[in-house]
């Protein structure tokens, strides 16, 4: 117990406190180039005001919200449909398919992004070549499409994982319930809607909360794709903005304020979602 608490304090409580403290701190540098040392003082909500009034950061928040609404929805729906199909009596070789879908989850997000980044570059990508051959000219790295190219990577990586959570829940449904439903004359679609979906609800809620938290943290994918897509700015996502405030501008106060805002947002969004779904169930 003690070692965990010590480490937990060091790696979780302390950074959070430090971030909160830092976010209220103003650093003023003395001398022309700051060579005479820096002094820090209490800044009130100045850093938060700067973070929030910065158009780039606000835009990045809007961007991940849009991303989240579309990507999380698509992914959860896809995962649910795949899980239902795999668990239906009509599916052949469910073990093989399940494994194939889960495979991308074993590939780290960065590596997956590197992999897809090759598939997004014209000249190398056989997919783009194929599309061009049938008359579709697609540039996945253009300003208007790159967000959805990132969404594709995330969907590719996590759909199978979410599907497994749902499949596990489906497997725990007692066989008698299916039999009873069939005796009552329910077809596969009817069983899915009235029996399976309500019973996998907890798994769906869990998967959605994890996905929301994941969306807010979006960092590796845009950061890696930045090398190939000029459309991705330094503040494309909130995390990217915080990273750049800290390491490109050395503005730790604003970076900390941004980090705190991201954490708060993740917390609030998950709590709200959990609250909504719990109320809906009652």
């Amino acid at each position, binding site marked *: 117990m003690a070692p965990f608490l010590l480490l937990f304090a060091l*790696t979780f409580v302390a950074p959070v406190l430090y971030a909160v403290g830092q976010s209220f701190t103003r650093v003023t540098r003395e001398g022309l180039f700051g060579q005479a040392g820096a002094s820090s003082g209490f800044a009130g909500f100045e850093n938060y005001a700067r973070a929030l009034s910065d158009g780039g950061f606000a835009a990045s928040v809007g961007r991940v919200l849009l991303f989240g609404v579309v990507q999380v929805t698509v992914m959860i729906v896809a995962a649910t449909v795949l899980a239902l199909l795999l668990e239906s009596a009509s599916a052949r070789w469910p073990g093989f398919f399940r494994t194939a879908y889960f495979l991308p989850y074993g590939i780290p997000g960065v590596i997956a992004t*590197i992999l897809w980044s090759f598939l997004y570059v014209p000249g190398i990508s056989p997919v783009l070549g194929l599309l061009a051959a049938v008359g579709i000219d697609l540039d996945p790295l253009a300003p208007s499409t790159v967000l959805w190219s990132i969404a594709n990577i995330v969907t590719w990586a996590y759909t199978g994982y979410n599907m497994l*959570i749902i499949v596990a829940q489906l497997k725990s449904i007692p066989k008698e319930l299916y039999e009873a439903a069939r005796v009552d004359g329910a077809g596969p679609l009817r069983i899915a809607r009235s029996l399976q979906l309500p019973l996998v609800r907890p798994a769906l809620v869990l998967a959605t909360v994890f996905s929301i938290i994941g969306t807010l943290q979006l960092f590796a994918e845009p950061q890696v794709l930045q090398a190939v897509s000029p459309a991705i700015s330094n503040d494309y996502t909130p995390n990217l903005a915080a990273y750049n405030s800290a390491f490109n501008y050395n503005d730790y106060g604003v970076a900390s304020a941004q980090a705190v805002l991201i954490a708060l947002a993740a917390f609030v969004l998950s709590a709200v979602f959990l609250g909504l779904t719990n109320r809906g169930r009652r």
Partner: protein
Amino acid sequence: MTTTSTPGSTTTSTAGEGPAAPRQEAGEGARRRRGTTVLVTAVLAVVTAYFLLPVYWVVVAATKSTQDLFGTNGFWFSARPQLLSNLGAVFTYDGGIFVRWLLNSLLYAGLGAVLATYFAAAAGYALAKYDFRGRGLVQALVLGGVLVPGTATALPLFLLFSQMGLANTYWGVLVPSLVSPFGVFLVQVYARATVPDSMVEAARLDGAGELRIFHVFALRALAPALVTVLLFQVVGIWNNYFLPLVMLADQRLYPVTLGLTAWRSQVDRLPEFYQLTTAGVLVSVVPLAIAMLVLQRYWRGGLTEGAVKD
């Protein structure tokens, strides 16, 4: 699995219900079911292509020279495969730094996950079985730790560690990896359900110390939950990109994920990095993919036991 195959029925897959001669009711149903099977399987197969295509592509690409990467069909091997020389380049480039990256990843993920699991077991067990002051506060903090994203703490962690002189060292990545709030949470839930108080009491009467009770009895009872925690932690650390990126400046301390991005970012200036990157990705993906396939079943079992509670 109840696959419905009707012997002797030579009908095609289309579930057409045209105005043909009236059939027996059962034949009609079987035929429609078979149509559904083909349809479902076709959908599943198409989806498989989506999930496996990038992996297939990297297998093909890793066998090519940079020239062939651009000049030949990306879906098929070129006439001059050179997988071995590409792999050789990966392992020997810059004095074998790729091997070092792999070993670093193993160190961070392996040692980090084992220790994290042990600490999570101890903490979760203590939270479940002992009544002490501040327990509620600790529980609330742990839950907070589960919900607050890791990337939000990575930045302040770096600022903190750089003041302590831990940034840009192995400790900078290893120490944060030892903490798994999710693991503590899971073990706590699991311990409450599977380690009976009576057993702990009985052991105490027999004169066993608290540490001995934990190590001998509790750890064994908690084993299924611990496997899950371990797996999650291994994958979590292995996949973590933000923390090492923030923490490390020295390339020799990089995990393999960071190293490969460093290579990827150089392809514009130095085209030979195409070969290094694609072959490097292949090397790092294949062992993981195999591990995934093997561990899949454990994964599924453990996850829902504690996490999904109705």
